[in-house]
């Protein structure tokens, strides 16, 4: 053995301080604490700003559909806002999740090799388009051109209350806002689920094929079960964006404070759009009322994410993570 390789330098075996390790541990711990602190601080801030308005309110905050916070007798409630927000987001999800998963599946497992990355980039680019552009497009292009579609729904599926339109006006509706929202969250859903589809170990796909699975059966046997937690996360992130989307919805909806299941009729409102539209004209109590509605949106988003976590955690043993 050469001199160079023989054991010469004896490192001391006792404990030694490692400043870089300590610094790194401190930074990561600090980052974690800051996130938790920020979340808590936002909630506390909203509550603190909202409390005076909530005290002055003369109608039930959760169930009322009125919005007159700056009256001498302040009256405001979030029922219509919650209804519009949830309904538009749910419709957007119903459209965007299947399409987004389809796009993701196509780009990850079906598209020709040369073509797939390009398609992936285009979908990702869609996520980078500012929401005001989607709003303008919805208002200027989609709205005038979709009237025929909504009328068709009314005439042929009008027996379903959701598609019934008693006003015969088919613009500035929840349905239109939901379609725009769906297009906006589509890239989120599709990009995330594409990543998880791509992460499915080739061994599982080969195992399914070797058992005589067709391409679709391979997806069902090996790809979807493995990607399920990721698919849920993708849908929930999309839902989060839809719930909080402001400007596109504010442009499209003609704001009303009512609970109307006829989704193709004009009207409806959402938390975020209402805050954007009312903020400048709001008085003291009005601002507090808007912040209170923001607090509710915050809690709803939180609850949605927690629910998604529960769904993912429930079958942890079978996740393939171990």
């Amino acid at each position: 053995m050469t001199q160079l390789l023989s054991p010469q330098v004896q490192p001391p075996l006792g404990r030694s301080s490692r400043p870089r390790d300590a610094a790194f541990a401190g930074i990561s711990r600090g980052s974690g604490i800051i996130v938790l602190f920020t979340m808590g601080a936002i909630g506390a801030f909203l509550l603190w700003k909202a409390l005076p308005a909530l005290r002055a309110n003369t109608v039930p905050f959760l169930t009322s559909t009125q919005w007159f916070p700056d009256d001498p007798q302040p009256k405001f409630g979030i029922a219509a806002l919650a209804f519009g927000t949830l309904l538009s987001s749910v419709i957007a999800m119903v459209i965007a999740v299947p399409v987004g998963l389809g796009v993701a599946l196509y780009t990850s497992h079906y598209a020709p090799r040369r073509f797939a990355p390009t398609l992936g980039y285009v979908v990702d680019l869609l996520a980078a388009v500012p929401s005001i552009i989607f709003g303008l497009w919805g208002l200027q292009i989609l709205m005038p051109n979709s009237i025929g579609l909504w009328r068709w729904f009314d005439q042929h599926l009008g027996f379903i209350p959701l598609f019934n339109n008693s006003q015969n006006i088919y613009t500035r509706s929840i349905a239109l806002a939901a379609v725009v929202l769906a297009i906006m969250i589509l890239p989120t859903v599709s990009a995330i689920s594409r990543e998880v589809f791509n992460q499915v170990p080739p061994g599982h796909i080969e195992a399914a094929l070797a058992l005589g699975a067709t391409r679709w059966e391979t997806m069902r046997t090996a790809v979807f079960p493995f990607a399920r937690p990721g698919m849920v996360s993708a849908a929930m992130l999309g839902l989060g964006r839809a719930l909080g989307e402001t400007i596109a919805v504010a442009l499209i909806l003609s704001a009303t404070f009512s609970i109307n299941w006829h989704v193709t009729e004009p009207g409806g409102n959402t938390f975020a759009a209402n805050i954007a539209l009312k903020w400048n004209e709001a008085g003291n109590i009005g601002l507090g009322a808007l912040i209170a509605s923001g607090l509710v949106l915050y809690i709803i988003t939180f609850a949605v994410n927690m629910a998604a976590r529960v769904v993912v955690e429930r079958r942890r043993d079978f996740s393939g993570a171990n």
Partner: protein
Amino acid sequence: MAKRIDVSDLNVYYGTFLAVEGVNLVVEPRAVTAFIGPSGCGKSTVLRTLNRMHEVTPGARIEGKILLDHENIYGPDIDPVNVRSTIGMVFQKPNPFPTMSIYGNVVAGIKLKKRTKKSELDDVVESSLRGANLWEEVKDRLDRPGSVLSGGQQQRLCIARAIAIQPQVLLMDEPCSALDPISTLAIEELIHELKQQYTIVIVTHNMQQAARVSDTTAFFNIAGTGKPGKLIEMNTTANIFGSPSEKATEDYISGRFG
């Protein structure tokens, strides 16, 4: 239940790259045929052409003919999906479906083909797991995920999954290379039992293993990087290891290279 495989003039390509050239060989039913050879010689590639798994890789294709009894599995009217359910495969790395239970893994192949009654599935699960020498170890926890098993148990679970659909042939691609010696022994004993009913082809890096489990051995070799792999010699295992007719075979099995 067991069929014979007859490979003639097989050339295997990845895109334009010729990976294996001019293979002619016969795999006898109810016997174990071992493919041995150095890394990159194309033995796994040839194995994967036998159940049309090779073409799953983009750009991969073959020339030549592979007969299962008298039917060309590369014939124009042949559905590769049906070929793969007739010729089962076990992979190098144990790959039970992590999202399925032990029970679910065994019946995964059957469920693809037809709706089957629960009682029938129960029977298949028991007989397949018994066939894979795993039943006693897992019978009380069939609902647990396959991933809780040890590596050797997982590989036997994969064998159970493969034989549950009652294939004619079982292909094994280095099934023991990720396992410890005791698990390897368990799998080798299992191969001995399985050959009563199945045609078995096993690729192995381990020459002792080939000598222990196989009846016939095929030695593949490669002339150099970028050159195609070739079948050098095929004979009874006793002859390959006792008196090989090619110098290259002798060099390889005596450990002079590879």
